């Protein structure tokens, strides 16, 4: 069956796909139209209660909160896409270096990955902000590094598994170089795993943007952003407590959407789940208490405020479906 149709039949995946579609749509629409001008202030309409004209009410300076959220989705999409691109490229680069090169380079890359994984993304961002000043680029670079390392760790064993396959040997024998093999065999084979990871990574990027913009090191002052809005509304939490509900709920639903989309994509692309006979043969208990758990414990820790579950070898759902992204990692750790 068509993977997209399978995704739409997966309740969690469908929910995620809808959330992401709405997000992208509102970001696009906000480029040409929002219900009100999101930065227009008017002291006559301060703290209006939610009505049809102002669905989420207005803030202290009379700005329409709904329009601010719609306009803020641009920053969210920018950060999510930018981080996913950065993390994907960095992750694949590190993973390929860790799989294709000579032994001493491989070992060096492995140590680097282990150390970088211990840096929480927020600390990377603070370090960059101290040097360069806060900006959305800093958020994107920090998440790219923080999550890229995770992608490298998850895809490296995948890449090594592909490289060990007979058809790669055949390709090598017929004179195709490393880059050709990477392009023709490795990348198509790890693409499903990569896409799932990127979906989870975007969730982390959105939370990171919210947190950093809240601290004042993310979106610039004049740019509508969900984290910024949350921090601005917090100032008046004593006067209008319920106004913080909107941006927070929107962030939560969006993060949940990306997480569930990732879950759905994993279930759809995972051959162990797609084939009921195969999934019976997956040992139900290989993941949780394996030494890999301990290995993961020391190393895996970036952007941890959100969904650590997904980026570690011990996925919470690993018992139900030892996914293709986790099983080789477990073996790696056991060795």
């Amino acid at each position, binding site marked *: 069956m068509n993977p997209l149709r399978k995704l739409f039949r997966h309740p969690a995946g469908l929910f995620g796909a809808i959330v992401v579609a709405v997000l992208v749509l509102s970001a696009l629409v906000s480029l040409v139209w929002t219900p009100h001008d999101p930065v227009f202030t008017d002291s006559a309409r301060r703290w209006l209660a939610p009505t049809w004209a102002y669905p989420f009410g207005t803030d202290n300076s009379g700005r329409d909160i709904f329009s601010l959220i719609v306009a803020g989705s641009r920053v969210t999409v920018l950060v999510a896409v930018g981080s996913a691109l950065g993390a994907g490229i960095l992750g694949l680069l590190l993973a390929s270096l860790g799989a294709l090169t000579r032994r001493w380079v491989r070992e060096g890359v492995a140590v680097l990955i282990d150390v970088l994984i211990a840096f929480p993304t927020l600390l990377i961002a603070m370090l960059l902000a101290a040097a360069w000043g806060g900006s959305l680029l800093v958020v994107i670079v920090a998440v790219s590094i923080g999550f890229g390392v995770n992608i490298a760790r998850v895809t490296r064993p995948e890449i090594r598994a592909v490289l060990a396959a007979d058809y790669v040997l055949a390709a090598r024998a017929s004179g195709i170089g490393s880059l050709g093999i990477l392009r023709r065999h490795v990348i198509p084979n790890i693409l499903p795993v990569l896409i799932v990871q990127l979906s989870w990574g975007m969730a982390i990027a959105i939370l990171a943007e919210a947190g950093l913009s809240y601290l004042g090191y993310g979106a610039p002052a004049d740019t509508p952003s969900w984290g910024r809005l949350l921090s601005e509304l917090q100032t008046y939490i004593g006067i209008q407590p319920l106004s913080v509900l909107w941006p927070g709920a929107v962030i939560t639903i969006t993060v949940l959407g990306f*997480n569930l989309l990732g879950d759905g994509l994993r279930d759809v692309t995972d051959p162990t789940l797609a084939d009921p006979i195969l999934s019976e043969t997956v040992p139900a208990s290989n993941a949780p208490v394996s030494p890999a758990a301990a290995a993961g414990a020391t190393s895996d820790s970036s952007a941890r405020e959100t969904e650590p579950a997904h980026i570690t070898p011990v996925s919470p759902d690993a018992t139900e479906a030892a996914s293709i992204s986790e099983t080789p990692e477990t073996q790696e750790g056991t060795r």
Partner: protein
Amino acid sequence: MTRFLLTRALLLVLGLAVASVLIFLALRLLPGDVAQVIAGTDATPERLAAIRDSLGLERPLPVQYGEWIGGLLRGDLGNSVVTGTPVAGEIWEKAQVTLPLALLSMLIGLAIAGPLGVAAALRRGRPAGFALSGGAQALAAVPVIWAGMLLVIVFSLWLGWLPAQGFPRAGWSDPGAALRSLLLPALTIGIVEGAAMLRFVRSATLGVMGQDFVRTAAAAGRTRTGALLSHGLPSVALSIVSVLGIQVAGLLVGTVLVENLFTLPGIGRMLVADVGNRDLTKVQSEILVLTAIVLIIGTLVDVVHRLLDPRQREVAR
């Protein structure tokens, strides 16, 4: 076992060394003049010269790095470029807020994740199990800052039970007041982190439930729950130890955000302020200290896991 400990210790030292080099380089390979960044664009030439001199910026990078690390090993984290006060003393002072906060958050997280995670596994495929894992999935997507605001609205603004922000000036000399001011912040981190941990505990429990010894106990007449509780719990507990290692970084990031939300005088709030002040020497040492905490706890968790797990002891011999 000795060999394992030595390898782990060596990896820890190597990790700390690489981390310190990365932090140092990230702050020194700036676009332009480090002194200018610290002092701002309107600084006088005298001020710039003073900063260059106090940081030793004229000397080669390896020498500067060596001095920083040499100081670290003697417990001297350097002085603030902005205020001139020693960094180590200030970190120690702020740690008296951050460490209890992190510990309390962890306990709350465990109290949530442990029992509910096991329950979610036992009720798997039934409405209660679905509600528990679905709820955890949703809670784990909540931004920590928003969770904090919601708790403030309910427990401070509406019920008036707990303070919405601040930490008593007297610190821990009044333990009751200090604890009260840490309760909401810890609850904030604990709930969100607990939701993330719950999913690990659930999957670990499901894994244990599939094990032969639990099945045998069940076959010998125990109920499934009884068999799990009497025979499976040690394995589940073991997996909780590793989850803790994974969650340390999340806890620390949580404290940075929550200390700013609740205006608590901890390391996280200090770090955010120092980043704003471009106090590079302080930022450099603070980030290294936080990274070291993550790396050290990760190593400890590894070692404890190894000590507790008889199967791994077999392998080690």
